């Protein structure tokens, strides 16, 4: 078998398949199962990433038809630049997480069998890889749902906890409804492709070839956008996300937040740019609006959270929003035939997808490490961990810096590119868009600033200060596989941040294929060190220089100031001269976000109550206070609950049909036949 991306990929799939089939036989040896299983997934995902990288670098397309599925509708596989890019995103993070899992899953030994975890983990990765590879509607949906089902079981891994069951259920329902919507959208396109004389219409090739009538195209797009948004957790379809991601095992949450959401992004890009191809500007603005909504609301929710993993989950909503913003901009630009701008925006979005995969994976792994060490998810009971978890804390900090989009780390690059795309909107020739899109930029700025606040909170409350709440004994640094996995993710965060020009050059074929323009030339026209999206007069950013500059100045100052041996004396806190400071005087997660809660509170259902115990004493001398805070999602009451209530009402009504007496049933038949006879 010749050595090509295709063969490498098939190797990785065979590995995963082998693992899935053989795992049940290793049931007895759990320790061995973990070691072998996750090493296999690591290798497999690394292979996939490599294949993807090769495809994109080589800029070639591989096609393959597997003799599976229906004889007239076999599975079509297509490995093109876009697929290659997402293969890298998925494979890379899956590789890091798999290595991390070798250490992390050991934590479950003795508590519960991990066989199902290993099996569904492998299925999950395979499903994601297949989603980006599939080239016909049937295979796409099959792999899409395999992905959903396996994650459902992964979320249910600790199935005795009711909140897991609730979350998993919610997740699966939303995912499935979304899947049906996607199915219908494909149905439209396939139907118009061939009119269902046979099965040919289901391949993406056939869909690409057909030009849809605008009405149908809009229907297809809206259905697809709905379906994919449900998966991506776009507000208001996000309700499942902050439930499901926190309760899953952390390595799984890392993958779910890091890459599973990206498959939805992939779907949108694939359907809009590749399959449908030409579209009016309002599609783009729709995507843009939902992106902004998710970005702002999502991060606001994140700031409010007190559960570390919930905070991370909500910030995923925000990042998905940012990606959608860029994609929306790209759609608007390309609908006006501004190809280079479209290319810039699209690459910004995809770049952000890659970055988000890295740092969100890193952060979830870090959260997993914290849970692994302290068995605690609630930030109110954490704090001061930087002293016990030196590695984890540094790596988590890197994640926080990246996600708060601060230079020189990767988060900033993609967001900077997005801003540049925004700043180019005046070149649109529609006045109203000219006026409105800049406001979007302001919202984006708001969301990124809030992100900084959220992650100052996340890191500060969790790792700094003193341990809040009951201190369960000594905490140990996590084991090596976990550290290695996190470290690799952290390094990739830095690399992606410092060497953006290379990444963009590498990603350029995608832009060329989907928007018909390239930006690599202009982007690195000023030298590899300077990222100049359009022209260096327009705007430029040099991550390496910034990185080096900061480093140099810091070192120089440090050295200069330490020429004189300055003694450092440790002393108790001064704190404006307060006496006996206790740990309970620290700012808590709730109090940190208080100002923002006051300012943006109207967006949430905030319930605060202060109880004085024991009540009835003189109000001036309360024994103790208990403060309870509940920040709830308004969308639940607005969107989900009504639907649920309505369907139960309907089902009660329907129940009336069947009220037991046989005569009534006979009347039904009687009436039915009379009516039908009348109509004939």
């Amino acid at each position: 078998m010749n050595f090509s991306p295709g063969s490498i990929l098939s190797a990785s799939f065979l590995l995963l398949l082998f693992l899935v089939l053989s795992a049940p036989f290793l049931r007895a040896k759990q320790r061995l199962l973990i070691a072998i299983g996750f090493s296999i997934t690591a290798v497999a995902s690394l292979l996939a990433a490599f294949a993807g990288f090769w495809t994109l670098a080589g800029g070639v397309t591989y096609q393959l038809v597997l003799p599976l599925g229906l004889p007239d509708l076999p599975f079509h596989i297509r490995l093109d630049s876009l697929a290659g890019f997402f293969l890298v995103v998925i494979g890379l993070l899956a590789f890091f997480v798999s290595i991390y899992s070798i250490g992390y899953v050991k934590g479950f030994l003795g508590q519960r069998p991990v066989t199902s975890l290993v099996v569904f983990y492998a299925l999950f990765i395979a499903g994601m890889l297949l989603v980006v590879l599939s080239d016909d509607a049937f295979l796409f949906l099959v792999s899409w749902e395999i992905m959903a089902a396996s994650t459902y079981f992964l979320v249910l891994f600790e199935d005795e906890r009711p909140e897991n069951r609730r979350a998993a259920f919610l997740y699966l329902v939303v995912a499935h409804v979304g899947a049906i919507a996607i199915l219908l959208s494909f149905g439209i396109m396939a139907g118009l492709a061939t009119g269902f004389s046979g099965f040919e219409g289901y391949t993406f090739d056939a869909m690409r070839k057909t030009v849809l009538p605008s009405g149908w195209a809009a229907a297809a797009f809206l259905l697809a956008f709905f379906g994919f948004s449900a998966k991506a957790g776009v507000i208001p379809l996000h309700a499942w996300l902050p439930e499901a991601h926190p309760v899953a095992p952390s390595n799984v949450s890392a993958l779910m937040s890091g890459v599973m959401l990206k498959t939805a992004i992939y779907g949108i890009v694939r359907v809009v740019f590749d399959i449908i191809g030409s579209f009016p500007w309002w599609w783009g603005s729709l995507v843009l609006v939902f992106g902004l909504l998710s970005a702002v609301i999502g991060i606001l929710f994140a700031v409010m959270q007190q559960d570390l993993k919930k905070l991370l989950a909500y910030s995923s909503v925000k990042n998905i929003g940012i990606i959608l913003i860029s994609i929306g901009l790209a759609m608007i630009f390309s609908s006006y035939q501004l190809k280079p701008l479209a290319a810039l925006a699209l690459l910004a979005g995809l770049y952000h997808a890659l970055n988000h995969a890295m740092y969100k994976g890193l952060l979830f792994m870090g959260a997993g490490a914290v849970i692994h060490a302290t068995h605690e998810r609630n930030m109110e009971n954490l704090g001061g961990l930087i002293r016990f978890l030196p590695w984890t804390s540094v790596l988590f900090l890197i994640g926080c810096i990246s996600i708060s989009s601060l230079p020189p780390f990767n988060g900033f690059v993609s967001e900077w590119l997005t801003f540049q795309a925004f700043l180019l909107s005046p070149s649109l020739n529609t006045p109203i868009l000219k006026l409105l899109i800049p406001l979007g930029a302001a919202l984006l700025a708001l969301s990124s600033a809030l992100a900084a606040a959220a992650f100052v909170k996340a890191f500060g409350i969790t790792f700094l200060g003193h341990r809040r709440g009951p201190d369960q004994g000594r905490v140990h640094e996590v084991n090596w596989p976990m550290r290695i996995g996190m470290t690799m993710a952290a390094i990739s965060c830095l690399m992606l941040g410092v060497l953006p020009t290379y990444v963009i050059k590498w990603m350029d074929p995608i832009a060329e294929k989907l928007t018909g323009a390239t930006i690599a030339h202009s982007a690195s026209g000023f030298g590899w060190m300077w990222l100049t999206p359009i022209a260096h007069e327009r705007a430029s950013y040099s991550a390496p220089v910034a990185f080096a500059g900061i480093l140099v100045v810091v070192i120089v100052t440090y050295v200069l100031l330490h020429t004189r041996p300055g003694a450092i004396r440790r002393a108790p806190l001064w704190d404006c001269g307060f006496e006996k400071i206790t740990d309970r005087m620290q700012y808590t997660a709730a109090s940190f976000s208080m100002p923002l809660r006051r300012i943006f509170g109207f967006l949430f259902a905030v319930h605060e109550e202060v109880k004085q115990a024991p009540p009835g004493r003189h109000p001036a001398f309360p024994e103790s206070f208990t403060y309870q805070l509940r920040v709830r999602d308004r969308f639940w009451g607005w969107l989900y609950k009504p639907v649920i209530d309505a369907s139960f009402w309907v089902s009660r009504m329907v129940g009336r049909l069947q009220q037991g007496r046989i005569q009534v049933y006979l009347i039904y038949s009687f009436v039915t036949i009379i009516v039908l006879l009348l109509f004939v």
Partner: protein
Amino acid sequence: MSTQLAAQINSLLAAFILLTAFAMLAQRKKLAILHLFAWQGLFLSVSTAIVGFVAKSHHLYISSLLTLTLKVVVLPYILHVLIRKLKIRKEIEAVVNVPTTMLIGIALVIFSYHLTAPIRELSTLVTRSTLAVALATVMLGLLMMITRRHAVTQIIGFLAMENGLFFAATSATYGMPLVVELGVALDILIAAFIFGIFFFHINTTFDSLDVDQMARLKEED
């Protein structure tokens, strides 16, 4: 006997069948209903025989014989025995508002007449006009099952429907192929045994044959 006369007699019998159907719909006493049912069977078998004579298709004699034995002798006998065994002869059941039922019945007759009109145009048989009656009988039987609350009467209604079907078969098409006729008859016989068993079960478990007690399985709450 000329075909004309045969047709005359046949339509007369059809009228009788319809009449019995209505009578059953109105009748309260079980035994009386049973007798009416037997009469209906008798008319049916006679008409079948006549049609057979007219159409010179001899398998109709067989089916007429079948009808006679089944609908006039066997089934009424079985039911009679059951009624006596289960001591439900005396039970007078409430029939929902006879006049209304009658009106609905009339409406049904008109309706089925209207429905079968096109067929009548097409058919060349002397018996074609009786198809409406057949359909009406079926409908009336169904109506009877709807209005009655007693297991036995429901069964009788069911059998009346079957009568209507037989009548339709003979009058519309000079009878179905013999295989079918026999098979149908066999099915009815089996059915008879089954509901015989059922009466016992129902009676022993609910100590009455009032089907309104059997409304436990339902969705609404």
